[in-house]
Structures are given as C-alpha cells and as structure tokens.
C-alpha cells in the first residue's frame, strides 16, 4: 500500500449500464481528473448524475467499462477493492452489526495482519480523532446516527489510506449534526494530509468542504473548479441552476456588444455578461435571488417593475416572488418589510446576470 503518493489520476473513466430495453447507457462518461495529495474533491450533482458510480469505480466496487485509474505510476483499476486500500465511508455507514465499535475500527488493521498489540493504540487514536473514546465496547446498534457515522469515518481512516472516499456520508443526519460533522470531516482531512473524494448532492456541503468541485450531470462532467469559481462563474446553465441561480429567463437577443448582451422579452429588458458562445436569436439569463436587490439601478438600467405575489419570511430577509405585468416571474431576496401585493422595482447588476445559450 502506498501512503506517500503524489496524485491519483482518472483517465477517461467510463462505466456503462444496461438501460431500459437492454440499451446500454453511460452512467459515467469519460471522467478525467487528477487529485493531488492533500486535496479535498467534491463530486456534486443531482441523483443519477454518476457521482456515486464514479466513487464506486475508484473504490473498485464497480468495474470500469473504459478508461483507467492511476495512483502515481501504478495502474489500479484492475485491482480488486481489497488490494487498493482506499478508505470508504458509506451512505448508510455499513458498520458490521455483530462487532463492537473497537472491532469495527480495527477490522481493516486485522485484515492487514497488524498484531493486536500494535492495533490497540491505533484504534484508540482513531477513536480520539472522531471523539468517541469510551464507546469502544458498544455495538453499532447502541449508538446514535451521528456516532455511527463517526465510527464509519474512524474505520476508514485507521488504515491510513492514501485516499478516503465518502458517499454522501451526512445525508442521514439531522441539520445541526450535519454542520458539526462537516467541520469534523474537514478537520480530519487536514490532520491526515491525504486526499479525500466526497460525493454529495448538497451544494452548501460541497462549497464548504471542497478545494475543488466537480459538477456532474447525466454522467458527464459539467465543470471542475474551486468553490468560488463554480459559485460565481458557472460554466453552463445546468451548473448555474444547480448552484442556486433560481431565476433563469429565456429571452430574445436584442444586441451583443463584446461580452455584454442585451436581452428583451415582454416588459423585461436585461443586460448581462455572456458566459458561453450564443447560438440563435434566443438566450437564457441566470441570476441568483440574493443578487437581485429591491430598488432602482443606476440610470434605470436592468430595473424591472412587478407585483409581489408571494412572501417567504426567512429571518434576515424574505424570499419574494415578483411578477411583472407581462407575467415574468422573478425570485428576489428583499427586505422583510415587503408585503404581499406591493408594487416594487428590482435591480439586477449587469455582471451578475449570466447569459448562456438557450436550451
């Protein structure tokens, strides 16, 4: 087992499944990615986007249909999972129900033939790392969901794997525990100084954890970038939608000037920034609700008038549904003082209105 690796390389990793009617489809299509030591990578996408397939392919739990996986100069996609030595944390924890916490954590060491005397301090260290000291003699069934999750993490890291794979490890926890465990995972990742690949459908989780995010859809990579890049500069409309650009308006292209594009439709006139080459006379503009402000733009630019048709109070501000006279709906974060049926004017900053080709 290599511990002092430099990078894990996925080269056009492809996995096919037999779909409806026996027609094969690519659950994962030519995923190419290099993961450096110390990096935290999130595979992000809706369910069925191929992110779990990718993780299973890396772990060796699924055979590749094409491509290869390399750990430095060693090709590993031909090895069975028990020879790869990656630590994996499963969505439903997959703790061995008949073994105590200590035995669960020590299982990987036992399989590697580590003598019991050397095992004990390492298990104790892992228990301390996940803050479960004192629980070692309990059975998994006697632990809470959050504790079970931490046992699963301890079990995966005690073997000191070069790579830790996590498959939506927080999806079974409640909101408060999820945020706490998220911080734990990030801390453990820093302490171990290995690489982590983390699968999630939760954009907040990906943004807060990852060094780099891989956004996927239908088995195809849409964008690879830092959280800031993916958040502020989505590569295409899918990524934008997934990253919380809730307002997507399909409009007519009125004028193109450099990367500035003027779009028109009904009583809406918006100037935005082009992110992809446009094709045809129609284009889509994507804006986050929190980047639209209630008020007038400079010189009336990018200002849209409408009536408030719904108000969702959320503490610091409210989420407003603003409908223009021609029926265009905009989601806007506005002041909590806004009331239902108010007539408001909202302003969209030009550089935060991202323009993509229409679908």
């Amino acid at each position: 087992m290599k511990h002092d690796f430099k990078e894990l390389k996925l080269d056009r990793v492809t996995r096919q499944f037999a779909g409806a009617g026996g027609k094969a489809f690519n659950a994962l299509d030519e995923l190419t990615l290099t993961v450096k030591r110390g990096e935290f990578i999130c595979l992000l996408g809706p369910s069925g986007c191929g992110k779990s397939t990718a993780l299973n392919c890396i772990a060796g739990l699924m055979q590749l249909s094409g491509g290869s996986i390399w750990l430095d100069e060693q090709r590993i996609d031909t090895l069975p999972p028990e020879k790869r030595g990656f630590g994996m944390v499963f969505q439903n924890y997959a703790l061995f129900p008949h073994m105590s916490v200590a035995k669960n954590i020590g299982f990987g060491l036992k399989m590697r033939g580590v003598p019991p005397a050397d095992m004990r301090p390492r298990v104790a260290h892992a228990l301390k790392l996940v803050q479960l000291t004192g629980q070692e003699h309990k059975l998994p069934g006697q632990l809470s969901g959050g504790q079970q999750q931490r046992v699963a993490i301890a079990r995966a890291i005690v073997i000191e794997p070069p790579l830790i794979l996590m498959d939506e490890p927080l999806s079974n926890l409640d909101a408060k525990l999820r945020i706490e465990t998220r911080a734990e995972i990030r801390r453990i990742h820093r302490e171990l100084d290995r690489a982590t690949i983390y699968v999630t459908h939760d954009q907040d989780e990906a943004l807060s954890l990852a060094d780099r995010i891989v956004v996927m859809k239908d088995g195809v990579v849409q964008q690879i970038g830092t959280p800031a890049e993916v958040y502020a500069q989505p590569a295409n409309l899918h990524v934008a939608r997934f990253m919380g650009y809730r307002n997507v308006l399909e409009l007519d292209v009125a004028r193109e000037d450099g990367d500035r594009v003027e779009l028109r439709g009904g009583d809406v006139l918006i100037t935005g920034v082009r992110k992809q080459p446009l094709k045809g006379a129609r284009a889509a503009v994507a804006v986050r609700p929190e980047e639209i402000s209630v008020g007038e733009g400079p010189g009336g630019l990018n200002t849209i008038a409408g009536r408030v048709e719904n108000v969702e109070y959320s503490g610091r501000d409210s989420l407003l549904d603003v409908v223009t006279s021609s029926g265009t709906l905009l989601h806007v974060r506005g002041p909590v003082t806004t009331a239902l049926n108010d007539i408001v004017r909202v302003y969209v900053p030009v550089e935060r209105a991202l323009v993509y080709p229409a679908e």
Partner: protein
Amino acid sequence: MTTAAAKSRMPLDPALLLVVPAAAFMLLLFVYPFLYGLLLSFNPKEGNWLANYRFFFTTDNEWPTIWTTLKLALPATLINVGFALPIAYKMRVKSRYQRWITTILVVPITLGTVLIAEGMLIYFGPKGWLSQALQFLHLYDGPIRLTHNYWGVLISLVISGFPFAFLLILSYITGIDPVLARAAATLGAGPKSQFRHIYLPLLAPGLAMCFCLAFVQAFSVFPSAILLGSPAGPTRVISIAAYEAAFEQYDYALASAIAMIMGLVQLIIVAAVLALRNVFYRGPVAGGKG
C-alpha cells in the same frame, strides 16, 4: 387521569379475537392429543406407571433405535446444511443463472417421500440405471447396493431435506446487506475473509435454526426408512418401533411412550443447538440507518 389508569380501563382489543381459531386449533389438534399420549404412556398394559419406559430402555431391539435414528438424522442434517450453505452463498448475487439453479435445486421439495423412494429404487437399485451405466463404462464392476440399506435412506433424506435447508439459508443470506461485504472489501478483506468475518457470524443464528428444523424433519423419518432401508435391521428407526408397537402389537400405551422418547431426544438436540446460538450476535443484520 394518569395514562396508566386510562390504559387499565381500555376495553379488550377485539382484534385479539383473531387468535381464537388458531388457539382452538392448537388445543384440539396438538395440546390435547399430546397430553392424552403423555398420560397414556404412563398407563401400561401391565406393570407400574413406568413400565413402558423401562421396557423401551431394557429391550434390545427398542432402545438402540435412538442411535439408529440419530446415525441417519445427524449426518443427513449436516450434509444438507453443509452443502446448502456454500451453494446459497454463491446464489446470493442476482444473475441470469441464479433463478434457474435455484429452481432446479428446489424442485425435489415438491416430490413426496414415496415418489422419491420409487425413483431411487429404479435408479439406484442393483439393476438400476446407475449400476448399469457404471458397469457399461467399466468404472466399477462390483455390485452396487444403494437401496434397502442405510445409504438408501440417507440419500433420500438428503434429496428431500436439501431444498428445504437451501431455501432457508438463501433467505437468511439475502437478508444480509451486501454493502457490509463491500465495506469489508474496501478494508482489505478478500472473498474468503468476507465470508468468514461478515457472513458467517451474521448467519450463525440462522444456521442454528436451519439445523434444528432440518434435524427434526430428518429424525421423524418413516416412509423412506421402510421403502429404501431395511426396516428389520440397520434402518429400524424409532418411528418404526412406535409404529410396530401401535399397529402390530396394538399396545398404544407403549407406542405413546416411544413417541414421547422420540420427542424428548429431538428436544434435547434442538435445545443444545439453540443454546449454542445464544453465543452469537443476534441483532439486525443491516449496516446502520437505512
């Protein structure tokens, strides 16, 4: 009003009445005949109340039937459970062949003991196909005796008992979350270790249950011991002794005593196996919150 007081005043749940038919059935068809037989066994034709039991344990062609039956039932059960386990383990993964193999293995369960015996007499008999085929191919020229002796009964117990053990174990195995084996694999456990450390311990209680059921089934062997064995000698099992007492000597009291002894032997073995089962983990076999 406290909840406890409220509870005590709650009317009887009418759904409980659904138990009545089953309870009546048990009383009439099991508890009553059993108690009747038990009392009858202590009322011998002659002698004091223990005379029947004394007779059984002091007569040379009676008490050895316990061993005769055990010598058939224990190996048959071990063979059935022992072969069913690896085959069911292989069949746990859904594949194209899985359904076919499972079907073929389970078919004998639909055959009656008598039908199996008939078939075996023709196939395994001295002039049967097996014997003729082996002699034709010059693989074995001596006489082959697989019927009317110990082996005939054992083979028939395996044929009729295996599908039962197989189905039972298969259902236990498929109840174990396969993600546990995958987790073990990522921790460095090869296929053998996965079986030994994950499947076997989780299966152990189920295997014990399966052993008990298969054993009880085999211990009460009767038709095949007569049709395929030599009921006067090596396969004179305990049920034959009871049958002879009841329907050849018309001594129902002695027959009841033998049946009681038969039940007691089964109970001892089952209790021993179930006690052993308590040593193992017996909780849910999933890997955590679903």
